[in-house]
């Protein structure tokens, strides 16, 4: 059996879930026996170079670029995994969901207490910038998600167990202490 191929990305997330993946410590050597990494911030591969078996998604969907990346992952990965609360339900970025977008941007760039040197009252609008969405969406509301791993971040134990279970095809058994939402 060849190695399974894994891709990872962080959308509207804080990279905490990626840090938690690295928290598997020396088990990363065992994981390296089972998998190889393709597109991922960990190895800095920017574009998919082949079809992947597993895609790990951190973070929810807050702008047009997130949608683009997420759809790209869906097309190139057999199994998509929502890793962490943000991917599952929007997480802390979704706190803005009940505040109009205009108000959020005004607070950040025009009226906020930390705003300085913006005499022209500009909200960044360069066409290179991805457009923000009206709300932060859970990943499964944009594409089909196959597996969800809760936690903020999910514990290293849970991520490791889930990856090994997915790669080897055995049932996912998570110990009580490893399943947490915080």
């Amino acid at each position, binding site marked *: 059996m060849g190695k399974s191929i894994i891709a990872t990305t962080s959308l509207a997330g804080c990279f905490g879930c990626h840090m938690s993946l690295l928290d598997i410590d020396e088990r990363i050597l065992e994981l390296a026996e089972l998998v190889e990494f393709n597109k991922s911030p960990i190895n800095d591969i920017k574009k998919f170079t082949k079809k992947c078996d597993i895609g790990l998604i951190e973070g929810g969907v807050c702008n047009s670029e997130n949608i683009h990346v997420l759809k790209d992952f869906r097309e190139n990965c057999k199994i998509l995994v*929502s890793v962490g*609360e943000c991917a*599952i*339900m*929007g*997480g*802390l970025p*979704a*706190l803005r*969901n*009940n505040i109009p977008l205009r108000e959020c941007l005004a607070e950040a760039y025009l009226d906020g207490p930390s705003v300085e040197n913006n005499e022209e009252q500009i909200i960044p609008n360069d066409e290179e910038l991805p457009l923000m969405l009206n*709300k932060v969406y*859970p990943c499964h*509301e944009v594409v089909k998600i196959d*597996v*969800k*791993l*809760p936690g*903020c971040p999910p514990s290293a134990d849970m991520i490791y167990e889930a990856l090994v279970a997915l790669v080897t095809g055995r049932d996912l058994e*998570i110990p*009580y*202490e490893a*399943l*947490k*939402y*915080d």
Partner: protein
Amino acid sequence: MNKVINFKVDGVICMAEKGQHILDAAKANKIFIPTLCNLPGFKPKGSCRVCNVKVNGKLMTACTTPVAEGMDIQNNTDEIIEIRKMIIELLFVEGNHYCPYCEKSGNCELQALAYKYKIMAPRFPYQFPDRDIEASNDKLLKDHNRCILCKRCIRAIKDEKGRSIFAFKRRGHKVVINIDTKLSVNMSDEMAQEAMDVCPVGAIIKKEIGFSVPIGERTYDKNPIGHELDGIKSTGL
């Protein structure tokens, strides 16, 4: 002593005093039935529905149904567990439950039940309802985003004359828990703590102290809710 009657839970023969509710009778026989609204010593409400059991083939809330001679109760069957999981998931999507920064996380009964039933994520779409946080009270903060309207605070937290400090405000889907501004003026620290403890979720938070117990030592970090009764780590997947 009251008359002793016999009943069965998942085929196990149990004994109870006449007039006991199923939930309490099961507890006395070391059987855990989950609940979010019931509170020992107070009149049961049956509002959260998590304690659903099948009594002689019919769904009933265990907290409000008195046990009767010869009752055949189903508790930990696949069907009942699935119903309970659905109710818990509905409660999660119906409010705004951000566990990562909630002060009650680790001590929250709603979260603890989700852990016990190994819920990885709710199957229903998140509603993101627009709700307020009320911080006008000196000692307590009310976060309506997390309230599951179980009425525990209304029933349990009363002043020396027996008047409720908390009450329902508005009706239907707009109903929220309200703190009586006059009655709560002289609220003691102990009463504020009791109000926070009685809340099954993080809707009532005591001000000026938070995250005082480190992760790993909170109530449900190592052992699931109900573990002290039945010793079961987790049920169903």
